[in-house]
């Protein structure tokens, strides 16, 4: 029996697919989500309109969504930059934690003495270095021993989570507030280490979101306009060809993973500097920004500029999920929707690669 449709490889990829695929994927995900909601006795229209209201309608909702979008923009960029080279770094979660650890340390040490601007820079750098080094371990293992980076980077998420618990709950570390006896909590960074917010048309834009925009643009330039970006593209397409062309694949693997981790680490720094003001072990682990970042990057088709927009979209969804959580809006719902978006985004790639045609011969046979 032949299938009624057949896939025909596209010889070139039309430009309009770049925005059409994410839009179609998103709509398809909402339809699939509606089926899940209907099957479990909820009214999808009601759920979606509430998500829209709490996520996107009005300046207050948008301020909240951009706040949630900020860490997602960094973890999305983290995933996008590595996936582009075919390196599946799913350790954004752990690299994000390590960045938060490094930035909190810098904020606590320098927050009292340096002027605000300098503290922000030191915190950001410290977060980037910690996240970057943490990811570089994965890179070295991959480059030197050819160890599967998917599993190592994921295992390191669990290790980083245990490390966070150790710092805040199971030790008297520098990061822990010594006054918190019964309810262990992180030590707040000094006020001077707090990052700024800017108001644009009533919407509060955190400084970190502006940094994310700059980072996204920088990555775009790096990948589109530099020799390094070109080499990364060659390695992604064919590692063998790259080696014959004299491109140093091993060092490029380590550099790309370190860059990827540095972006996640910068997100962790933003989480501490712009939002929480302390190392919040439980809050970080509950948010799962690293994993959501993968969804963001996939829906943005690994384009750094689109990643920023998609981050706002998914940030709105996540933010609405937090705000609505309750008995008739169970906690797993947003995660389910995000998973569906990832499904449809990867299924949508089929339309990029193939043209789907009706199988005429099969139709003739059946007639």
């Amino acid at each position, binding site marked *: 029996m032949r299938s009624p449709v057949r896939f025909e490889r596209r010889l070139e990829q039309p430009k309009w697919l770049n925005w059409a695929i994410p839009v179609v994927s998103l709509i398809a995900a909402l339809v699939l989500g509606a089926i*899940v909601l209907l099957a479990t006795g909820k009214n999808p229209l009601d759920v979606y309109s509430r998500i829209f209201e709490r996520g996107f309608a009005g300046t207050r909702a948008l301020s909240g969504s951009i706040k949630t979008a900020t860490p997602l923009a960094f973890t999305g960029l983290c995933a996008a930059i590595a996936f582009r080279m075919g390196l599946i770094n799913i350790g954004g979660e752990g690299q994000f934690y390590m960045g938060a650890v490094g930035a909190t340390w810098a904020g606590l040490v320098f927050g009292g003495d340096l002027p605000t601007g300098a503290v922000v820079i030191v915190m950001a750098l410290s977060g980037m270095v910690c996240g970057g080094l943490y990811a570089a371990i994965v890179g070295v293992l991959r480059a030197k021993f*050819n160890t599967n980076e998917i599993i190592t980077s994921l295992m390191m998420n669990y290790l980083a989570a245990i490390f966070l618990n150790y710092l805040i709950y199971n030790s008297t570390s520098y990061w822990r507030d010594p006054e918190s006896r019964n309810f262990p909590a992180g030590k707040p960074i000094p006020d001077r280490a707090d990052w700024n917010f800017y108001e644009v048309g009533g919407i509060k834009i955190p400084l970190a979101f502006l940094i994310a925009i700059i980072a996204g643009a920088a990555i775009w330039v790096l990948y589109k306009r530099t020799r390094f970006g070109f080499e990364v593209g060659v390695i992604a397409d064919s590692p063998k060809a790259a080696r014959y062309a004299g491109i140093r694949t091993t060092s490029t693997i380590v550099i790309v993973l370190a860059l990827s981790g540095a972006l996640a680490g910068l997100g962790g720094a933003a989480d501490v500097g712009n939002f929480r003001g302390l190392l919040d072990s439980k809050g970080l682990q509950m948010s799962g920004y690293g994993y959501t970042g993968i969804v963001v990057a996939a829906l943005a088709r690994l384009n750094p500029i689109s990643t920023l927009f998609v981050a706002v979209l998914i940030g709105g969804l996540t933010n609405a999920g937090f705000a609505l959580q309750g008995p008739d809006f169970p906690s797993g719902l947003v995660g*389910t929707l995000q998973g569906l978006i990832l499904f449809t985004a990867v299924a949508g790639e089929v339309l990029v690669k193939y043209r789907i045609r009706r199988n005429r011969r099969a139709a003739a046979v059946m007639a």
Partner: protein
Amino acid sequence: MNSNIFVIIASSAIFYGTPLFFAALGGIFTERSGVLNLGVEGTMLLGGVSGAWASQHVPGSAWFTVLAAIIIGMAAGALTSTLLAFLCVTLRTNQTVAGLAITIFAGGVGLSSYFANIWKVAEAPVDRQVRRLDVFGWADAPVVGPILFNQTILTYLSWVLVVLASVYLFRTRFGLQLRAVGESPQTADAMGINVVKYRYLHTILGGALAGLGGVYYSLAIVPTWVDGMTKGAGWIAIALVIFGFWRPSITLIGAYLFGALQSLSSTLKARNVQISGDVLDALPFFMTIVVLVLVSTRFAHRRLGAPAALGVPYEREER
């Protein structure tokens, strides 16, 4: 003698290693057909929550309820991986991202948590469990009693499965054809083997086994449902497939090794051994990385390696 710490560790290694083995065995079938399933963690959780729900709601005698829970959990796992097979085999998508999508969709903050919420699974304990047996009344026999004769029925099932799976993979025609599909789908197709059918069936079988692993968590290990209760076991299972060189017998040994590591924390705490709990919790994850590095250096280019077509979508050239 049976309170000797080594006896306890060996006994719990098998107890905690069993779900890892089920998930890893599923991974062996799936990967032998050339499909990489990174959705094991999510599949296990969906199997676990469905099993827990069934254990609380299916009426009848205790053994019937437990049997129903096991079957429903496996069916949930099979259904989840049918979705993966559709994406990877029919739509020929990137298998890595498709698997990640399954884990995010079904995982600890996804559908499994959603189901647990709307079915109110976590609000009551899962009373009807898969309990440890006392085989031949030898559970108290010195040394071997707790290790071999005081396990759950699922552990004994897993021992049967090791033999069956090894025979199937290496001694039957179907196993040979399966391996051919995983090594070179073009050749297999030319020989008249239905590549799509083999990939679908073994991906679904793998999902059912992952679901069984999940049921083991919610019905044998923890008496109450907790979101994300497998805590990375699905990922360790994926590493175990590599560690076991895609062979059921070696994978069983690896599963018990990691079962021992996972149980170490609770075992040693109960005996007041002074070791940081965090170090013990970190051990399975750390050892997974160490094991993967060792395996990938020494044996990567030997014949024991991965199925050659693993992770590559098969595209039949049209005439």
